C-alpha cells in the first residue's frame, strides 16, 4: 500500500516541474504549450491563469482529448499548490501525452508572484440552474456557457429557418442576439415559423420573435432590426456581431450577407431550404469557401422557386 506522499514522490521522478517564473517567461516568449487547469469548478470560478483550459482532475481522463487532441502537444498542468497537477500530468503520460509538465506551487504561487489572473463573470443562481444541463456536457461546461453568454450573434431573417435557430440560440443562452427582418407575421407563416403566435399576425416579425425568445429566456439581450438589410446598413449592423446566422429567403440578401461577411471577415452559418430539402454549412472567410465559390452569381429570376 502506498501513502499519498509516496505516490507524489513517484510522480516527481517522472514528471518535470516548472516554477511560476519559468512558466511566465515561457508565456511571454509565446512558446507553444497548453496550460491545463485541473482544479475543481469552485476553485476555477474564483480565478484562473489567462488562456488556461479547464478540465477537473475528476473528469481528466474522460474529456481531456476534446481539448487537447494532439498527444505531442506540450502541456503544463496546474492545480492549487502543485500536487494534483503532478498526478494529473502522470495520468496524461499514461494516456500517451509525451510532454507533460507540472507547475510547482500551482495557482497559489502564481497569485503570490502577482502574475495576471482571469475570472469569468460569476453566474447567478438562476443561471447556474438554467444552464445546468450544459454544465453536465464536459465539452460545454461553465467555460462554454460563459462563451455563449458573451457571444453576439446576428440572425438574418426570422422566418422558417430563423425560427428554430432563434429559439435554440435564445434558450441556450447566447447572450446577445440581433434579429433582422422587415416582414410582418402572416397567418400562413405560422404553420412552420415557430417564433410567431396567432395573436402576432399583422405585427413585425422582429417584435414577435423578441417576445417569444424573451419569454423563453429573459437572461439574454435582443436587438430587433425591423428593416431590410441593404448595402447601406449592412456594415454598421454586422460590425456589432461575431457570427451571422443566415436564414434569409431571397438571393439579394443572401449575396449581400455573403459579400459583406467576406469583406468584413465574419463567419456565417448558412442555411437554405426548399420544400422537403435543406442544406447547411459554415462559411468562414480565409478558411473555407464562401457562397460565391459555389454560386458566383444567382440564377435568373424566372428560375428561382419561391
Amino acid at each position, binding site marked *: 500500500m502506498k501513502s499519498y506522499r509516496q505516490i507524489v514522490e513517484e510522480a516527481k521522478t517522472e514528471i518535470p516541474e516548472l516554477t511560476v517564473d519559468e512558466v511566465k517567461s515561457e508565456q511571454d516568449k509565446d512558446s507553444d504549450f497548453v496550460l491545463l487547469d485541473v482544479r475543481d469548478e469552485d476553485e476555477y470560478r474564483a480565478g484562473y491563469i489567462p488562456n488556461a483550459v479547464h478540465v477537473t482532475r475528476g473528469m481528466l481522463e474522460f474529456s481531456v482529448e476534446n481539448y487537447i487532441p494532439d498527444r505531442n502537444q506540450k502541456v503544463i498542468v496546474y492545480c492549487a499548490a502543485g500536487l494534483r497537477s503532478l498526478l494529473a500530468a502522470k495520468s496524461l503520460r499514461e494516456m500517451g501525452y509525451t510532454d507533460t509538465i507540472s507547475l510547482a506551487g500551482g495557482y497559489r504561487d502564481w497569485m503570490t508572484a502577482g502574475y495576471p489572473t482571469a475570472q469569468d463573470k460569476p453566474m447567478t443562481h438562476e443561471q447556474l440552474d438554467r444552464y445546468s444541463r450544459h454544465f453536465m456536457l464536459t465539452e460545454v461546461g461553465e467555460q462554454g456557457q460563459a462563451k455563449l453568454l458573451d457571444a453576439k450573434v446576428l440572425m438574418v431573417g426570422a422566418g422558417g429557418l430563423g425560427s428554430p435557430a432563434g429559439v435554440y440560440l435564445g434558450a441556450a443562452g447566447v447572450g446577445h442576439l440581433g434579429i433582422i427582418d422587415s416582414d410582418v407575421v402572416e397567418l400562413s407563416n405560422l404553420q412552420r415559423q415557430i417564433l410567431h403566435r396567432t395573436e402576432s399576425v399583422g405585427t413585425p416579425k422582429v417584435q414577435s420573435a423578441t417576445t417569444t425568445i424573451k419569454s423563453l429566456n429573459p437572461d439574454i439581450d435582443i436587438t430587433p432590426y425591423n428593416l431590410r438589410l441593404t448595402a447601406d446598413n449592412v456594415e454598421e449592423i454586422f460590425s456589432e456581431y461575431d457570427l451571422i446566422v443566415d436564414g434569409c429567403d431571397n438571393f439579394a440578401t443572401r449575396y449581400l450577407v455573403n459579400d459583406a461577411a467576406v469583406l468584413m471577415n465574419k463567419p456565417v452559418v448558412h442555411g437554405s431550404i426548399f420544400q422537403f430539402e435543406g442544406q447547411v*454549412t*459554415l462559411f468562414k472567410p480565409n*478558411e473555407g469557401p464562401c457562397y460565391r*465559390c459555389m454560386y458566383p452569381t444567382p440564377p435568373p429570376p424566372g428560375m428561382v422557386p419561391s
Partner: protein
Amino acid sequence: MMATEAIKYIIGIGEPLIGRLILYDALSMTYREMKISRDENCPLCGDNPVITELIDDYDAAAENPDTFAPAAD
C-alpha cells in the same frame, strides 16, 4: 442544425462545417455530405478578387444576375 453549428462555433468544440455542405432530404430522411472548397477563381474570395466592395443595389442586381459581379478583366 443551424443553431447547433452556431453554438459549436462559439464554444469552439467539435468539427465545424467549414468546407462541408450537409444536404438533408426529409422525404427519404437522409443526409448527404458534400465537400466544398474555396474556388481560387471566386470573384469575391479568390486569389484575384474582382469584387472588393459591396454592390450598390443587391435587389436590382438580383433581377439581372449579370450585374451581380463586375466582369473579370
